[in-house]
């Protein structure tokens, strides 16, 4: 009990530390600084309708590169952690429960729909809200549903890692192209800027987002698959 009250004390101290931050906060009425520049010149400089995607992919493209590396590292470490067996062992019963009839038929209908939605999200990343990450996550959830409904179905680990690597390498390659052809690493002017608002606009952003979508999708599926088939490592 003493320990909890001590922790409470520490938490109150932390709250007191955070209080001036909260206290001196009031909502701004106009954008200032960097955001103002992005807002006013985003359209000309990057040409993406969805300003957040513009910031994510081009302005702070290096962050996204870092971001993708994090997921890649996370799945690598998880792969490292769980000694995943290549061969499909007979007794890998479903983690949850025997998949029921309803789940199988529903999944047969839903899975393609979800995948279509995911693809739409990351293809139109620069126009509508969403982007590579969200699209990838949706696709991963589609695969998760697939895994739930058909536990004995086996994914080839090879395929997932190949997609992952290829999309990663191409992403870096596009970044390098940025140096050779355009202003700097990860600059999106390497491809035609196209007409603002249309599908093929904003230079490299859609291509990058597609790559990110594929990569994130495969990584998350990889993680889920590793969890499902990981042997009980003594």
């Amino acid at each position: 009990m003493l320990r909890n009250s001590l922790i409470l004390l520490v938490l109150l101290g932390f709250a007191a530390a955070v209080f001036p931050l909260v206290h001196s906060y009031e909502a701004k009425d106009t954008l200032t600084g960097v955001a103002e520049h992005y807002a006013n010149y985003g359209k000309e400089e990057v040409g993406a309708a969805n300003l957040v995607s513009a910031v994510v992919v081009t302005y702070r493209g290096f962050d996204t590169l870092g971001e993708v590396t994090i997921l890649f590292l996370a799945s690598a470490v998880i792969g490292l952690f769980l000694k995943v067996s290549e061969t499909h062992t007979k007794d890998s019963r479903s983690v949850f429960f025997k998949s029921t009839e309803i789940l199988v038929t529903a999944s047969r209908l839903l899975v393609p729909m979800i995948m279509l939605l995911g693809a739409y999200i990351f293809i139109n990343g620069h126009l509508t809200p969403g982007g590579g990450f969200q699209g990838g996550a949706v696709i991963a959830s589609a695969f998760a549903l697939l895994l739930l409904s058909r536990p004995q179905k086996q994914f080839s680990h090879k395929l997932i890692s190949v997609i992952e690597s290829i999309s990663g390498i191409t992403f870096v390659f596009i970044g390098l192209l940025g140096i050779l052809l355009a202003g700097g690493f990860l600059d999106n002017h390497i491809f035609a800027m196209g007409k603002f608002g249309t599908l093929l606009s904003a230079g490299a952003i859609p291509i990058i987002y597609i790559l990110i979508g594929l990569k994130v999708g495969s990584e998350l599926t990889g993680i889920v698959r590793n969890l499902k088939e990981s042997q009980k490592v003594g």
Partner: protein
Amino acid sequence: MQLFSIEYISLVVGFLILLIGIWGILTRKNILKMVIGFSLFDTGTHIIIVALGYVRNKTAPILDQANLQTNTAQKIVDPVPQALVLTAIVIGLGVTALMLVYAMKLHNEKKTLNIEKYNDLKW
């Protein structure tokens, strides 16, 4: 400083969830509960980030309508925190997934989820 505005409430709620998350981490002995505490801590931070980016009665930073495309600085919310929070959420996922796998492996070793049992490395 209006107390009752959307962003201030969400900021306060964000901090409260953050504190609850930390409380969960520091007091619960069960490892899974700690990881849950962690995900709450992350969610709280994300709420704060987005709340900070909010500009009163402005629309989302998507320039789909024509009128938004001229002097957009006065019409949209701050896109930068949203970009940052996007990355933060995915980082949160990566870290949480890794922690859960750690938790699973720890459970394999000593068949218990109580953090106090894992004190072989001390002094």
